[in-house]
């Protein structure tokens, strides 16, 4: 269609004139919306605070240094809690996510009802942030590490199950067929034909999620669900800036180590 015959030969364009006009029109609308939004935001902004922001930032930064090194004595326990929340939470998530993934994958699900239920579990787990899970669980279970662990677990189920079920759907079917042809039953087909193919993904997902959960569990303390966030919240509320910087430093080191560990483990699996 974009090719037109003229007296001078054929003219080829990427789009027809109509398509081109529609595109221009959408660009026009998008830019107008951005311009309007920009104007709204600047009207509602108190510019005094914005111009003052660099001073404030410099002020806080100045109060943060030097970090209160001795505070580390009180941080070992919360850091240990944080790591435990992440690790146990990931473990809980993986135990639930395995069956959910097999129920959700098109090629292993027993029927459409089970598949729908499994997909619902995945979506609901993913749609609620771990901080909100923690908030709810602190109400139910009371503050502490348990609420945080379960919050991390529930939050991670959807993520892990989704990645695992996608990998189950992508397995090589002929390997499964070959196992089936030997007279193996359904469960044997699973452990000989399917599991070996998805095991690297399962391990990879667990490590990846653990890595994410270390970071997520550092903030759970803000709502009382245990871990180093509790100290962070306390220090922020009492304006103890040197403690805040110390905590941030410890979180940074923890995350750095967890990244390193997960990279090593992932390398070993694949």
């Amino acid at each position: 269609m974009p090719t037109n015959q003229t007296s001078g030969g054929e003219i080829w364009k990427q789009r027809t004139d109509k398509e081109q006009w529609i595109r221009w029109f959408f660009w026009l609308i998008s830019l107008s919306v951005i311009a309007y939004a920009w104007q709204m935001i600047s009207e509602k902004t108190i510019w005094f605070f914005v111009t003052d922001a660099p001073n404030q930032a410099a002020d806080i930064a100045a109060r943060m240094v030097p970090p209160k090194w001795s505070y580390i004595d009180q941080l070992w326990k919360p850091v240990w809690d944080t790591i435990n929340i992440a690790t146990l939470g990931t473990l809980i998530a993986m135990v639930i996510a395995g069956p959910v993934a097999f129920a959700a994958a098109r090629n292993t699900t027993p029927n459409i009802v089970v598949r729908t239920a499994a997909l619902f579990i995945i979506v609901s787990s993913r749609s609620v942030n771990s901080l909100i899970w923690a908030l709810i669980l602190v109400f139910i279970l009371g503050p502490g590490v348990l609420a945080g662990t379960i919050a991390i677990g529930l939050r991670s189920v959807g993520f892990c199950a989704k990645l695992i079920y996608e990998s189950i759907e992508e397995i090589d079917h002929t390997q499964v067929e070959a196992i089936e042809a030997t007279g193996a039953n359904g469960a044997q087909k699973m452990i000989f034909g399917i599991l070996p193919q998805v095991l690297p993904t399962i391990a990879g997902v667990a490590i990846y999620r653990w890595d994410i959960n270390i970071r997520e569990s550092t903030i759970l303390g803000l709502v009382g669900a245990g871990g180093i966030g509790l100290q962070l919240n306390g220090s922020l509320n009492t304006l103890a800036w040197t403690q805040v910087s110390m905590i941030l430093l410890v979180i940074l080191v923890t995350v750095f180590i967890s990244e390193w560990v997960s990279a090593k483990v992932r390398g070993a699996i694949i």
Partner: protein
Amino acid sequence: MLQLSELKKRYDTGDYALKGVSLEVPKGQVLALIGPSGAGKSTLIRCVNRLVEPTSGSVKLKDMELTGLSSSALRRARRKMGMIFQEYALVERLTVMENVLSGRLGYVGFWRSYFRKFPSADIQEAYRLLDRVGLKHMADKRADELSGGQRQRVGICRALIQDPDVLLVDEPTASLDPKTSRQIMRLIQELCIERGLTAIINIHDVFLAQMFAQRVVGLELGAVVYDGAPDGLTPDVLTRIYGEEDWSATIKAAEDEEDEL
């Protein structure tokens, strides 16, 4: 040994992959099934062990009707039918030994297979078979470390350890080079003779079919158009199976090869 009658398969699209195939394969016969891509060769052998469910017709193995079997009876029947695949279909991340032993899954329970606690007779047999195909030293290698020819040998061991009555072989040489293809076909032929096995071998290569089979069946658009001796494949017959082409070179090559042997 194996009896197909009026076997039909219609796919959901409405196309007939098999339009009523009848075949009788006596014990110990090695039968090559030739035909162009899409003729229904794969569908036919998959209808025998019901990896593909036939639409109508009957399949009998040693006078046992396979088409109506319940799923547990079908699993028992499948133990007596070994299958060898085009792309080997080994479980890539398992070892050679595990792949061979997977041929015994129909005989062992779930937990034994989960913990890989196969009976020692099975393990002895696995070593014997691997030794027979020259891969005993590779038993602990992972399947994905092997070359194509080696993988197909493992595939053959997996089928044979089932102690089958019938071998269903689907394009065993399609992903192999010409020399390895010959070696694999010769190995299958020898093993069939050693064990008195009945085999149906799907194969593109007319020339390998003529070299290694006692009987050739030509399939075209889901129907048998030739059934006879390998040397009955004249240019006329090949044209009927595959369509118009100059066949003289193919037939000549097959004759030369026989002289060499």
